[in-house]
């Protein structure tokens, strides 16, 4: 039992990271209507900013903030230069896929060019200690990830529901034309959405990296988990991203331990989740049914 609890918390801790990436994906989906297949690579890029600042000597938490800012700038630039000229994703899905694939390859290669192919270690924000509950040991880092996710979710809630900027973002997500007619600077709002998504990616990377290292492959598998999270939760729901992320995290870490058949295939539960949800209930748990129209 205590082993199950341990797996559970590892799953929840990892799931928190998928939820963080997922919230970035939802932000972009709501703003510009597309699935950003390059989200993981952009988050990885922002994580390299974190590493660089940490390497230079900044305290880790400050490096994370710096990485968020850097990531935000990269996200904004990407929107302005590449995404904005493409047009409506629902009318040209292939163009959007190709562009995000191109960004995937470009960011991956650019990271290797700038920082090389060595693996760069990153310390865990919450240290390597563990909390002991009876015979169960839970890493503080995993609990920290959950706490940070909670804070992020709360901040998102406040931003979107209680601020004028958030109101403008929701307006643009729902009806960009009318919002423009009401004086909302639409493309500046979309720009901010992309900046926000990449900034959040830096935080996700800061939690992902200590498990392995900061390198160009950091986010390739987590990206699928994040997509599974938002498919399950609903493409346009932040609550869905949180719930979905935690669920996928648990499924991915717990299931392979008990089902030998998928022991070496961590992506399998995520893939099944994506397939089943899209076939049976495309709007996921918390998404709106308008998501379904293609």
């Amino acid at each position, binding site marked *: 039992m205590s082993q199950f609890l341990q797996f559970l918390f590892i799953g929840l801790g990892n799931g928190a990271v998928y939820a963080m990436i997922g919230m970035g994906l939802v932000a972009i989906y709501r703003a510009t209507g597309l699935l950003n297949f390059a989200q993981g690579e952009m988050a990885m890029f922002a994580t390299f900013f974190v590493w660089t600042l940490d390497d230079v000597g900044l305290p880790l938490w400050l490096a994370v903030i710096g990485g968020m800012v850097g990531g935000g700038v990269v996200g904004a630039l990407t929107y302005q230069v590449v995404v904005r000229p*493409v047009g409506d994703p629902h009318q040209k899905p292939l163009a959007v896929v*190709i562009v995000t694939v*191109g960004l*995937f390859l470009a960011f991956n290669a650019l990271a290797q060019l700038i920082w090389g192919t060595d693996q760069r270690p990153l310390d865990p924000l919450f240290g390597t200690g563990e909390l002991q509950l009876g015979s169960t040991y839970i890493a503080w880092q995993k609990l920290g990830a959950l706490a940070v996710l909670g804070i992020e979710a709360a901040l998102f809630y406040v931003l979107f529901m209680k601020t004028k900027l958030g109101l403008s973002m929701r307006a643009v997500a729902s009806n960009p034309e009318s919002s423009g007619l009401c004086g909302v600077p639409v493309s500046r709002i979309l720009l901010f959405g992309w900046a926000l998504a990449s900034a959040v990616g830096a935080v996700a990377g800061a939690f992902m990296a200590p498990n392995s290292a900061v390198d160009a492959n950091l986010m390739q598998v987590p990206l699928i988990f994040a997509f599974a999270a938002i498919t399950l939760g609903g493409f346009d729901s932040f609550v869905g991203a949180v719930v979905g992320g935690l669920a996928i995290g648990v499924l991915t870490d717990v299931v392979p331990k008990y089902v030998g058949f998928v022991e070496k*295939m961590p992506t399998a539960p995520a893939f099944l989740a994506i397939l089943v949800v899209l076939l049976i209930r495309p709007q996921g748990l918390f998404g709106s049914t308008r998501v379904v129209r*293609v």
Partner: protein
Amino acid sequence: MSTTAAPGVPARLLRAAPWVALVVVLVVLPQVLQPYWVNRVTGWIPLAIAALGLNLLTGYNGQISVGHGALYGLGAYATALVVNEWDWPFLAAIAVGAVVCFGAGVVIGLPALRIKGLYLALVTLAVATLFPQLVEQFSDTTGGTTGLAVTSLQEYRGRMRERSVKFEPPEWTGLAADQWRYYLFLALAAVCFVIVANIVSSRVGRSLVAIRDNEVAAEVSGVNVAATKVFTFGISAALAGVGGGLLALYNARVSSGSFTLAVSLYFLVAVVLGGPATTLGPALGAVLYGLFKDVVEAEVLPEAWKPASPLLLGALLVVTVLVAPGGIVGTTRQVRARFTARRLRGTTPP
């Protein structure tokens, strides 16, 4: 009434000229290049065939797949296992791979009827990421990350031994091994391209495009949309499988590292840069990718700058979509048409 560049030269001959030149270049290539380079170019052919398959599905039929690398890998492993376990001749082994992949394509194509556009891309992306893990899971059969050598029984120093597969040129051809292999691969590729060209110009091909442009209208005008889409997925997958089988024989090895997500992405690169929904596009795209990988990255760039190659490809991809969505072939056609129109206007009597 024909448009002639020079008086007395019939238009038909002029249109055929580039094709003739292409065939000449392809045939003469191995006679002219060093064996090292012949081998490199031979290695581009499996990619060209897989890109041909992807183009049929995504370019002509509008179903977006970011997972063709998995089908490529499936074909490769199927062919490798058939050669290893049953000692079948190469063509038969590739055929088995193609059939297996056709089946897989149909299996994916069925749920794809209900999942479209960006969401289908997402599902195929997940498949592409899953494939190397599948290989790991069944590493007893597949050899996991270490991989499998593809071997056949060959006579070596007087005894029959299991050795890496080779392509032995028959005596009467007078060709070297690398040239013989090149011509075999080229012949198979030519067959595939001709088959696809025929599909595309037939009624089936028109219904493929009709479905891409407006599924509802196609259905209304009598096209069996579901059957066509699933069948296209199957054929597309089979072609990827043929490519994979050739790759397995070319490398004489299969391992999970050859079939990661990047492979699926590079297929898309070849299709888009070459020219979606064109016959020659995938081949050109494969050549372009091959040039980047084997010339720019391997020979030209210093070690620290090697990632500049995929960076350039990624950037090219983005620029192509924004500026020249027809790829090389499509844009060339547009430019030529505009040029012809301008010339015609210039020669119109006042």
